[in-house]
């Protein structure tokens, strides 16, 4: 077996992530027009047109994880932005002003692609960037959905914007959409999404074949690269590896998987090690998270693609959001659930208390809530987090003891 073949999917995905970032720099350096793009924007458009885009949300997460979140947030606050705003937004706004960031830099944009199916506040963030950098903003507005299906009117409304976005991008970049290529990218994206779902689906096994925190690391490629053959192959490899481990009853989780939990919310990137170790050291593995369905879009044609982007978890009603969590939690046999009160995210924190209460009542599973933030470390207290994790562990252990008796 060659060294290339021996690479684990985790390494392949990490290298692919680096390659995608480098490709964007190379394209920009060649003089091509590049954009900044929202994470749930239909990537099929830019991938099919060969337009380089980078993702400020991913930059916000990476800068947070590398320890630059507080400095960048404070810079944005010095510019007049409120500390109550999203830390991804503050990091990106600070970067737009400073034009440099020691932890990670992304090529500056010639245009912006925003899609509010993940967050409505994002529109204001992108409007500010458009104003500051004097560049066009293309918005695909996706109406909030109530339930499991997307009606025809919504599909037509989104499709019209999808078509208009292509027209505008053709004007801005000078590149033409090749619709055969678009169909090909859609097919590849289906492969990636199916493989991603297959990979995260293996968490159903006991033990789960991997540490659930790995999802936080792998989702960057799931978000930005799923329209590429390399990503599809990497996710298929990942799913194969997880399935093989599960078949043997093995896991890459370090230590015995004593307890299984659902983790609700975005990771605390700035406190990832603390939040992870606090769980792993007690034998707690993350086996359920909404990130599975959040970055997989299943469709057979263009109209279904529109519907798929309208049905992402963050664009749906509370009842549907709750149903997804309850379903995932029960299917993946969680012993407890952790709810991250993410101070950045109005969408996620706004209904979190009610989500926790109903989840607890419906499933009968013990829960805990902790305060934190996706990239601003000032909102997190390690002592408060650990106390709650210990209490949750004690309740889960007590439940297991009762079952053993």
């Amino acid at each position, binding site marked *: 077996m060659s060294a290339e073949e021996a690479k684990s999917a985790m390494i392949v995905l990490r290298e692919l992530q680096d390659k995608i970032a480098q490709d964007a720099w190379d394209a920009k350096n060649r003089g091509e027009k590049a954009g900044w793009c929202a994470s749930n924007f239909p990537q099929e458009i830019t991938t099919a047109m060969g337009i380089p885009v980078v993702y400020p949300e991913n930059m916000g997460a990476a800068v947070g994880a590398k320890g630059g979140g507080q400095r960048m947030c404070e810079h944005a606050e010095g510019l007049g932005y409120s500390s109550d705003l999203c830390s991804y937004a503050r990091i990106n706004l600070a970067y737009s002003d400073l034009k440099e960031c020691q932890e990670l830099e992304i090529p500056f944009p010639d245009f912006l692609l925003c899609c509010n199916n993940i967050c409505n506040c994002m529109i204001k963030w992108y409007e500010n960037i458009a104003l500051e950098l004097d560049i066009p903003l293309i918005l695909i507005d996706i109406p909030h959905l109530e339930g499991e299906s997307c009606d025809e009117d919504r599909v037509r409304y989104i499709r019209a914007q999808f078509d208009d976005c292509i027209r505008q991008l053709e004007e801005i970049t000078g590149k033409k959409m090749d619709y055969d290529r678009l169909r090909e990218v859609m097919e590849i994206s289906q492969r990636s999404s199916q493989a991603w779902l297959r990979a995260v689906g293996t968490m159903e096994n006991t033990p789960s074949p991997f540490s659930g925190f790995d999802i936080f690391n792998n989702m960057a490629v799931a978000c930005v690269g799923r329209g590429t053959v390399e990503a599809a192959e990497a996710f298929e490899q990942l799913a194969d590896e997880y399935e093989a481990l599960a078949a043997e009853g093995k896991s890459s989780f370090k230590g015995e998987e004593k307890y299984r939990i659902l983790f609700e919310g975005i990771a605390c990137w700035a406190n990832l090690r603390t939040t992870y170790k606090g769980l792993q050291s007690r034998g707690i593995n993350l086996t359920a998270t909404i990130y599975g369905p959040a970055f997989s879009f299943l469709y057979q044609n263009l109209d279904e693609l529109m519907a798929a982007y309208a049905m992402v978890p963050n664009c749906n009603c509370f009842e549907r959001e709750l149903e997804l969590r309850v379903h995932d939690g029960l299917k993946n046999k969680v012993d407890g659930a952790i709810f991250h*009160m993410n*101070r950045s995210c109005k969408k996620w924190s706004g209904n979190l*208390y009610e989500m926790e*209460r109903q989840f*607890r*009542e419906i499933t009968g599973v*013990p*829960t*805990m*809530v902790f*305060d934190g933030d996706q990239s601003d470390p000032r*909102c997190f*207290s390690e*002592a*408060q987090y650990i*106390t*709650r994790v*210990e*209490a949750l562990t*004690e*309740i889960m252990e*007590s439940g297991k003891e009762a079952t053993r008796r």
Partner: protein
Amino acid sequence: MADLLTLGMDVGSTTSKCLILRNGEEVLASALVPAGTGTSGPSRALEEALASAGLAREDVAVLTATGYGRSTFPGADYVVSELSCHALGAHALCEEARTVIDIGGQDAKALRIGPDGKLESFLMNDKCAAGTGRFLEVMARVLEKDVSDLAEMDEQAEGIVPISSTCTVFAESEVISQLAKGVDLCSLVKGIHASVAVRTAALARRLGVVPPIAMTGGVARNAGVVHALESELGTSIRVSPLAQMAGALGAAIYGYRKGSESA
């Protein structure tokens, strides 16, 4: 069978509590030192309790540490979260209790406990310090009073001056503004207590209040807060004279259960 002596050490953020139990039931001694984790408080509380019981450290079979500084207390046989310990302690003090409200120095908790005193579910305050013991200490300082004076002042109040800010610093400013207006101090204290009660009651309601309710932690000694909470929740709250020692008591009971299992 020889007596089983267990010791519970509750190393809080502002106080240290120590309690020694004989056979999981009889309180031999207890001590409370108004200095918490990172100070001499924990060791002083330990020494005081042992001296009061006429015991040496070696006489104690099991030492269980709990509270904010539980992990740094030396020589503990078991380290248990204060949530589980307050549940056990509250159960020992009020067997019927199914909901426990614990307001300590730096956090507030609502606990649901089972008929055996085991913790079933819990919620804690968010990142804000309002509604905690520290909040009351800050307010007492502004009023140039001791925190132990607040309950009596509340009782003497003829009215209530509402405090609406949820941030401790903002609330402090609000209290100072009211002082500048010359409002009745006792009515102001009642308003401060009501603001704590509103926040804590919301926490309890989110958990789901199952009566009877018991209250533990240092703030349980403040009858003004207890009455404000009763009024807010529309039900009576049971408070034991040992309420502030509930965490240490629960830790000693935990140690007894573990010690009995291994005996």
